[in-house]
């Protein structure tokens, strides 16, 4: 159904995929894990025919569906209209499209209510469900899911896993790209670990533990930026805002940005709001500078690339060609080097691997220890509990009272669901 042999792909000087051979079995769930920039997404885009391989051969049988990390939906169209776009052209009433959509959605086993709603009004989780429905509707032999759970609530993730198991039982092969190791161990039959463009481990999931996997994924390098010694009088507070995506987090971040000129800002959507893709790393790092000298900017960019262990060919590389984790490090370097008093970090580790996540957390802790107060907006509860001094839940645009982490443990689930 899908066989990749000796696939290699280069982007400029960067070897994204390096001589990879991989075969997919019928009806299996294969997890593809690895840190940011390991080449997982590139490999799968080649498999799906979206990118041309530099060299190597690909045998495909039947349709290959791919659900991307970013959404490919027409915002002004309804759910039903977005689904109808995949079909050939014909006359149909709005009502007929909606009925068709309902049948189609029901057949996938995914819950998505009222297909007459416009996509711009539905939540991120619902959009990702819609993308999944679109892919399943084509009845693919192989279905590739790129970080599908990064925007889902735990309940939605569980629902997704049920769908994935049903698809696999029906003979579809599912490729699941993820960073979340517990999920991978829960759902996958087989696990392939990539690092630096190569497959470094390939194993049956049965009997594996998260720490085995983590060790395979991460090439241990010297840990950067440890936590500075903490003096409680000058230490800044970390306030975490948690909640299901789409409950007003974006609006809250916008308001913070407008009300706090000069604050360090780590935006939720890093490719859209965080970097200028067509500009070099050095230029992106200089966007906050008052004065700018090209040579000095390149020199200081080289320093920052080393200090933040940004994986790049040099300060002149286009920021857009970096992997997600490395883009995030560029943003961190630019924002935190200003020694800000206030920091907004919105979903700072979404889609990042273990090592990059640990790095970002260490940087935020160090900034707090240095006296900065941090507003952390996250849908990752583990992140909130790992970092926050105070936790508040956002639900339908309203913030709960501030809770200590201990108190939050008890109440956060109910607050997020709007029950309490």
């Amino acid at each position: 159904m899908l066989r990749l042999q000796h696939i290699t792909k280069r982007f400029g000087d960067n070897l994204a995929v390096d001589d990879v051979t991989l075969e997919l079995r019928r009806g299996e769930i294969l997890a593809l894990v690895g840190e940011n920039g390991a080449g997982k997404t590139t490999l799968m885009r080649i498999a799906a025919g979206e990118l041309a391989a530099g060299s190597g051969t690909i045998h495909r049988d039947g349709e290959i569906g791919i659900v991307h990390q970013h959404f490919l939906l027409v915002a002004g169209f309804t759910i039903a209209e977005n689904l109808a776009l995949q079909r050939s052209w014909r006359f149909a009433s709005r009502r007929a499209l909606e009925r068709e959509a309902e049948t189609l959605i029901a057949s996938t086993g995914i819950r998505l209510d009222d297909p007459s709603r416009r996509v711009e009004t539905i939540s991120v989780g619902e959009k990702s469900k819609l993308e999944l429905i679109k892919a399943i509707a084509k009845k693919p032999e192989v279905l590739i899911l790129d970080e599908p759970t990064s925007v889902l609530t735990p309940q939605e993730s569980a629902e997704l896993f049920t769908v994935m198991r049903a698809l696999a039982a029906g003979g579809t092969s599912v490729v699941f790209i993820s960073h979340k190791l517990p999920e991978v161990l829960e759902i996958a039959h087989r696990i392939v670990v990539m690092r630096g463009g190569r497959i470094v481990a390939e194993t049956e999931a049965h009997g594996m533990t998260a720490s085995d996997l983590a060790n395979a994924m991460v090439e241990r390098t010297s840990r950067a930026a440890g936590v500075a010694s903490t003096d409680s009088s000058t230490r800044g507070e970390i306030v975490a805002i948690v909640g299901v995506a789409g409950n007003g987090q974006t609006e809250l971040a916008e308001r913070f940005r407008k009300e706090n000129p000069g604050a360090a800002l780590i935006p939720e959507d890093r490719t859209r709001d965080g970097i200028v893709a067509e500009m070099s790393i050095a230029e992106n790092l200089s966007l906050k500078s008052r004065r700018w000298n090209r040579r000095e900017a390149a020199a200081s960019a080289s320093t920052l690339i080393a200090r933040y262990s940004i994986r790049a060919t040099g300060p002149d590389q286009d920021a857009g060609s970096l992997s997600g984790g490395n883009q995030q490090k560029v943003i961190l370097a630019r924002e935190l080097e200003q020694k800000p008093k206030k920091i907004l970090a919105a979903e700072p580790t979404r889609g990042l691997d273990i090592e990059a996540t640990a790095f970002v957390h260490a940087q935020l802790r160090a900034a707090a220890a240095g006296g900065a107060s941090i507003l952390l907006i996250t849908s990752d509860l583990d992140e909130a509990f790992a970092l926050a001094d105070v936790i508040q839940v956002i639900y339908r645009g309203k913030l709960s009272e501030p809770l200590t982490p201990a108190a939050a443990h008890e109440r956060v689930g109910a607050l997020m669901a709007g029950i309490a």
Partner: protein
Amino acid sequence: MRQLAAALLAVVLLSLCALAVGRSPVELLRILTLGSVGSRFAIEGTLLKSIPLLLTGLSVALAFRAGVWNIGGEGQFITGAIAALIASHLGVVPAILASMLAGAVWASIATLMRLWRNAPEVLTTILLNFTAIHLLGWCVNGPLQERSAQYPQSDLAGASLPVAGELHAGIVIALAASVASWFLLYRTAAGLRLRATGLNARAAAWAGINVNAQLVRAMAISGAFAGLAGGIELLGTTHRLFERFAAGYGYSGIAVALLAQLHPLATVASAMFFGALATGAGELQRTAGISSSIAVFGQAVIILLLILFGSWRSRD
């Protein structure tokens, strides 16, 4: 590479047109070349035509780089010339400064409408062109009409640019403007902010850049360059205003900038090319009896091919 392919294809297409009207393309190309760069006189003519084209081209390149769609070069060119004429009685330097100021002010009307009601500058700048054209018509039939009141034109300007042969000092100003634009865009923090805003305004805003300030600035500089083009054309070449004064220089600036891929230094070569095309076309009219509209036609063919080749590659 792409520009070269587009230019070659343009030559082929235009040759076919020549054959269609029963003329030898080689002969016409010879006249076009000789008429634009074949003699000292021809070269001076080409350079004279490229001066306003270079400045309007820079005006467009700067604005587009900052993500501001200033299509109003024609109007800013005209208001710049009107201001230069009025200020020329104070001397040539005040006249040039006045032309830049007037161009900037005229362009900033569009900025104000954008900031106030979010009116897209593509529309407002175009509409301001028509306004300026009629303002010019009224001026040369009314308050600025020559004293003898015979023709719809102004008296001679009170000052003019220093000349050397056929050429005037405008060429130095235009070349300096080109280097200054390059320096601003690629060697200063202000230019970095302008470019970042043009490439990704959202990311620029999140990085703490005041995006509206960039819009104001880009539009003002762009307008100042187009106004300067008008001022220099008046003070160096025409010495008076008349109804068809602008002659499409503002619009041609878009073609010049696009051919140069919005790069301020490449704009010099691009302006020379279009200048040569226009001058050579004049020669075609005189010696071969072919309308000089053919130059405008050729320009249009080149722009269309550039856009075609550009979009063809970006679908990659």
